[in-house]
């Protein structure tokens, strides 16, 4: 929401040179143990409370997901999936959706406004709203379909991982609120260690494919899931199996930019060189002898061009 002076910035959107980076930082992460989640939405309400977000009261459309989608007032949302992973089993999988805080954030990569999206050295990816220009490129850039544009102020919003709380040594609001201990927060290393224990427990309960969701395609994330069925993340309301920044976005934001600017510059340069080598293409009168007047005209013309 706003820049945090106490957090160092690792990456800034639309900025080609590195940010100050002499201080060492530990990567932080939030671990969401889906197997412990009861879908109580306390995290959702805590998010609304801490960030002072209140959307409209919607309608029930036949599902427990309320509101039905993330929006500028809903930065985290419980997604409910009734699945039958095997022929004779039934599970109600409940996933807390929200920004994954990718190590290689597609939103940041896509953003054209310098500093409107930053990645702090601890891994948090934050939108600096006052710099947002409302182009929506972050939405296109995100492999998880997270950012949402506000119709009211044309700025994009998403989970900040409570950068304001983390900056002063607190946990994100959702973590503090979670009644079952499903959401935990700490260094990424610690969270991974904890996940190992949780996965062992799930394995012992017959979830052979339990695992950690920390997708390498986006360089890992700073919000990770423990999944009962890590082999099929799609069961969890379409969690992408192998998320990565779309090649189109990568191409557009990667090689295209220097190439395009280079091509334009090259073309302009070539034109200039051509001109100074060959000079202007003057139409000389072959048929009639050039009159003085015309010569003078021509001179004035060229000075006009220049």
């Amino acid at each position, binding site marked *: 929401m706003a820049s945090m002076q106490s957090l160092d910035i690792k990456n800034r959107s*639309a900025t080609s040179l590195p940010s100050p980076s002499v201080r060492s930082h530990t990567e932080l992460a939030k671990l969401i143990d889906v197997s412990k989640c009861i879908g109580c939405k306390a995290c959702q309400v805590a998010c609304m409370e801490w960030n002072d977000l209140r959307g409209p009261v919607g309608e029930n459309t036949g599902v427990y997901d309320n509101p039905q989608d993330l929006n500028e007032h809903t930065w985290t949302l419980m997604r409910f999936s009734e699945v039958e992973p095997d022929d004779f089993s039934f599970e109600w999988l409940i996933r807390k959706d929200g920004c994954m805080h990718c190590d290689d954030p597609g939103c940041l990569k896509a953003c*054209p406004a310098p500093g409107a999206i930053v990645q702090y050295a601890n891994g948090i990816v934050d939108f600096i709203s006052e710099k947002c220009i409302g*182009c929506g490129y972050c939405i296109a850039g*995100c492999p998880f379909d997270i950012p949402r544009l506000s119709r009211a102020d044309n700025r994009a919003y998403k989970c900040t991982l409570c950068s304001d709380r983390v900056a002063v040594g607190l946990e994100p609001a959702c973590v503090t609120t979670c009644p079952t201990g499903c959401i935990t927060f700490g260094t990424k290393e610690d969270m991974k260690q904890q996940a190992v224990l949780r996965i062992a427990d799930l394995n012992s309960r017959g979830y052979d494919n339990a695992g950690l969701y920390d997708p390498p395609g986006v360089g890992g994330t700073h919000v990770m899931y423990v999944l009962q069925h890590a082999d099929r993340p799609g069961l969890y309301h379409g969690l992408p199996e192998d998320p990565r920044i779309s090649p189109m*976005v990568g191409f557009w934001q990667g090689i*295209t930019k220097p190439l395009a600017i280079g091509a334009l510059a090259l073309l302009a340069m070539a034109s200039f060189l051509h001109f100074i080598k060959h000079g202007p*293409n003057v*139409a000389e009168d072959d048929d009639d002898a050039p009159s003085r007047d015309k010569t003078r005209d021509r001179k004035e013309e060229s000075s*006009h061009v220049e």
Partner: protein
Amino acid sequence: MSNKDDIRRYKDGERLHHWIVAITFILLAMSGLALFHPSLYWLTNLFGGGQWTRILHPFIGLVMFVSVMVLMVRFWRHNLVNRDDLRWIRYLPDALHKREGRLPPVGRYNAGQKIIYWSTVIGMFLLLFSGLIMWQPYFAPVFPIGLVRFAILVHAFSAILLMMVIILHIYAAIWVKGSLQAMVKGTVSRTWAKKHHPLWYREVTQEERK
């Protein structure tokens, strides 16, 4: 300055029209490049900042599209491609070295100009459709993200290509002495016409004789 002998090439309305397209293009190129490459983001200051640049760019785009469409209708007849155009392209490298002798006689527009014409027209359609798909906050939300991504890519590519075309266009106008006058005053010298567009020149002089 102008000579009574000069030939009228563009009417006042046509010139005004061209310059509207030109100005919108420049505004679009600057605002577009500002949002395209971080090094050029400073250009947004010319438009009142990032938000304003984002707001204005698509609307200016619409103006340019409509203008180009009208322009297209105005000049399409002169830009029909014929066999001589291929020959012209073949001997263009010679012409660039001022060995113009082997170029076929050109009508109102040479093949290069026709390429510029058609690239602009096609580019405008691509830019319009891709631009609509990525236009926040009005249209983008209804399209799937994959399509938006594709549109952004198409938009960037078409814009860059169009800019290259326009660079050539501008350079051609600068390089070929006497061309600029056509879009400034609306007239060209007879020597210019005779040299660069002999067929057109013949047409015009025949008309004069009538």
